[in-house]
């Protein structure tokens, strides 16, 4: 595997290798010197066309812990704002000898295009409303470390599935790893043919309360306020009432079930503070795990996996 563009790029063995490697990487974080020499002399470019504090910092930390040289290239204040094309930017990075390009872009498929123009590895760090495969990997890692397995789990992904790259990558990866996924949201925010588009057996429900009693994992998606203006739902209040996760709803879950959120959260919209700060919540762990998983991806793409 040269690039990581989609959750579909990962078969079960590769995904498991990444999760196992991430577990090794996690032990580095506990050391006094949080650094491995694995990628010394290699260059990782973070190419970010969208604001993203947490993903960019996570990749930066991951690359630095592996001793790679990290160049942060953000669309603001660069040649991009002068109208340089993605292709010309790609050729520039190529000329600078980037071994890996981590790209976040508002247009779906931009990392795929980039991969046709550079020799190095391209890692999709979120492309429009398409995919965010390292988020799915860190989510899988979190489920596995909390619940001990992934195969056979019932995962409810709740909210704005239509615009969610997190949801798409999770459906693909969880399907590959043998979990059952139910997508929950108002019909306006569930993409057409989603039951068959990504993974066979993906289910759809419009009724959160009906899904909760059998869920091992509830993954809440961020819902943007702007969606209201486009009539996807009538009001934030009605959305929260029908699809938000609050204390009473959380208590409908089985005792072992966990609550996840990719962040950033809208407290009071899709999730209440009581839930976000509860022991079931894995939201802070997900951030920690993100660094380990991204270390594993960089390590395997840039040298460890042939």
């Amino acid at each position, binding site marked *: 595997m040269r690039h990581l563009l989609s959750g579909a790029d990962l078969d079960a063995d590769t995904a498991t290798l990444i999760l196992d490697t991430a577990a090794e990487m996690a032990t580095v974080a506990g050391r006094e010197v949080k650094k491995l020499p694995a990628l010394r002399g290699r260059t990782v470019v973070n190419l970010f066309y969208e604001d993203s504090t947490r993903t960019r910092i996570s990749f930066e930390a991951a690359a630095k812990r592996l001793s790679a040289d990290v160049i942060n290239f953000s669309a603001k204040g660069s040649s991009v704002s002068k109208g340089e*094309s993605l292709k010309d930017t790609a050729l520039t990075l190529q000329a600078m000898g980037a071994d890996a390009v981590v790209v976040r*872009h*508002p*247009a*779906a*498929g931009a990392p795929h*295009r980039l991969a046709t123009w550079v020799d190095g590895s391209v890692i999709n760090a979120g492309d429009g409303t398409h995919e965010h495969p390292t988020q799915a990997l860190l989510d899988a890692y979190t489920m596995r470390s909390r619940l001990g397995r992934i195969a056979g789990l019932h995962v409810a992904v709740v909210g704005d599935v239509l615009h969610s790259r997190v949801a798409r990558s999770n459906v693909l990866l969880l399907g590959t790893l043998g979990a059952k996924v139910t997508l929950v949201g108002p019909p306006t925010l569930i*993409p*057409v043919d989603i039951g068959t588009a990504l993974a066979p057996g993906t289910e759809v429900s419009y009724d959160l309360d009906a899904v909760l009693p059998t869920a091992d994992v509830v993954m809440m998606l961020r819902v943007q306020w702007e969606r209201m203006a486009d009539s996807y739902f009538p009001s934030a209040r009605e959305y929260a009432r029908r699809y938000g996760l609050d204390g009473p709803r959380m208590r409908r879950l089985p005792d072992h079930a966990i609550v996840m959120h990719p962040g950033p959260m809208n407290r009071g919209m899709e999730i209440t503070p009581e839930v976000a700060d509860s022991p079931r919540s894995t939201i802070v762990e997900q951030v920690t795990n993100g660094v380990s998983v991204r270390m594993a991806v960089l390590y395997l793409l840039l040298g460890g996996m042939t």
Partner: protein
Amino acid sequence: MTESYLIRGARVVGGEPADLLLRDGVVAEVGRGLTAAGARVVDADGLVALPGLVDLHTHLREPGREDAETVETGSRAAALGGYTAVCAMANTSPVADTAGVVEQVWRLGREAGLVDVQPIGAVTVGLAGEQLAELGAMATSAARVRIFSDDGNCVADPRLMRRALEYVKAFDGIIAQHAEEPRLTVGAQMHEGEVATRLGLTGWPAVAEEAIIARDVLLAGHVDSRLHVCHVSTAGSVEVLRHAKARGIRVTAEVTPHHLFLTDERAESYDPVFKVNPPLRTAADVAALRQALVDGIIDVVATDHAPHALEDKECEWAYARPGMLGLETALSVLLEVVGERWDLIAERMSRAPARIAGLTEHGRDPAPGVPANLTLVDPAARRTVDPGELASRSRNTPYAGMTLPGRVVATFLRGEPTVLDGKAVK
């Protein structure tokens, strides 16, 4: 005095081989064993003679985007594709919404002299969909405009559409509608369906086309005017048209070669060469369109030839301009799709579009006294599409690397060759 041409052994519209003598701009004689002193002989053994193809839907980009195509380069591409007439869409810069602009395009076409370029006029000023353009002035200009279209944009306002349909009756005009309800396609990137869901691209739902066609056939029936539907792309649209035609509404429709041949799965590469508006649809839509073409529910194959500069395609899918080349590959794609059904091909690619556009010199099978607008096709040839070899100034063909049947060997415009031995004469 122009040169005479004696075409030997051509199968006229796929019939028995015959000789055709072209003289003084017309087909002078048709028969076997013809002789003509001084005529230049063209060996057409094994070739099929078709009436020169007529494209109802061509973007020539001039004036405004001469870096993507000019009237001359587009005309050359058309001649090489077997065309003798093309209708040039109005979405140029400036927009062809005045007599001045349509006359400019018409004059550039005459100067190029490779095909008859028949300008289409905009329905509304600046294609803005707010105020009727001076349709009458364009109709009475030297360009004699009969087809009006805001193509690229839909005439979405129902009252404006009604007025346009009514107004052009005074000069036997026709409104060619780009059927796309804009409120249903905000941000749309490709066909709404399983592939769009997988790719995370905003969907362009079939209903956005079907709803406008349904509205427009009812309007055309109400004011008893002529409606032409551009680039029909969905099975549902075919059903609406079937219903309208059964009711006697004066509606005609076109389909593009790419909608007869390619599906939305092409988007999986994220290569914008496959981005087009309306978008590539599903295999079920392709099947319905092919059947509709055979049944006559769809009257015409039109290319929607849409040249784009490299930088407008070599980018992210969402930022790319929609459209693909078509003139030099249309006949081959149709042969691939329907086979050697020559009468059907002549009807859908020449006679019917000429009738709709009112081009009386075109769309007539070669016969004594008929204007010598015809093309000779080698049905046995196969060719692999190489974007670098196209005469168009742009390279955005979706068929690159594909091997397709048929090759245009020669094209004649009023008895003068524009293409000989598969090469443009000028």
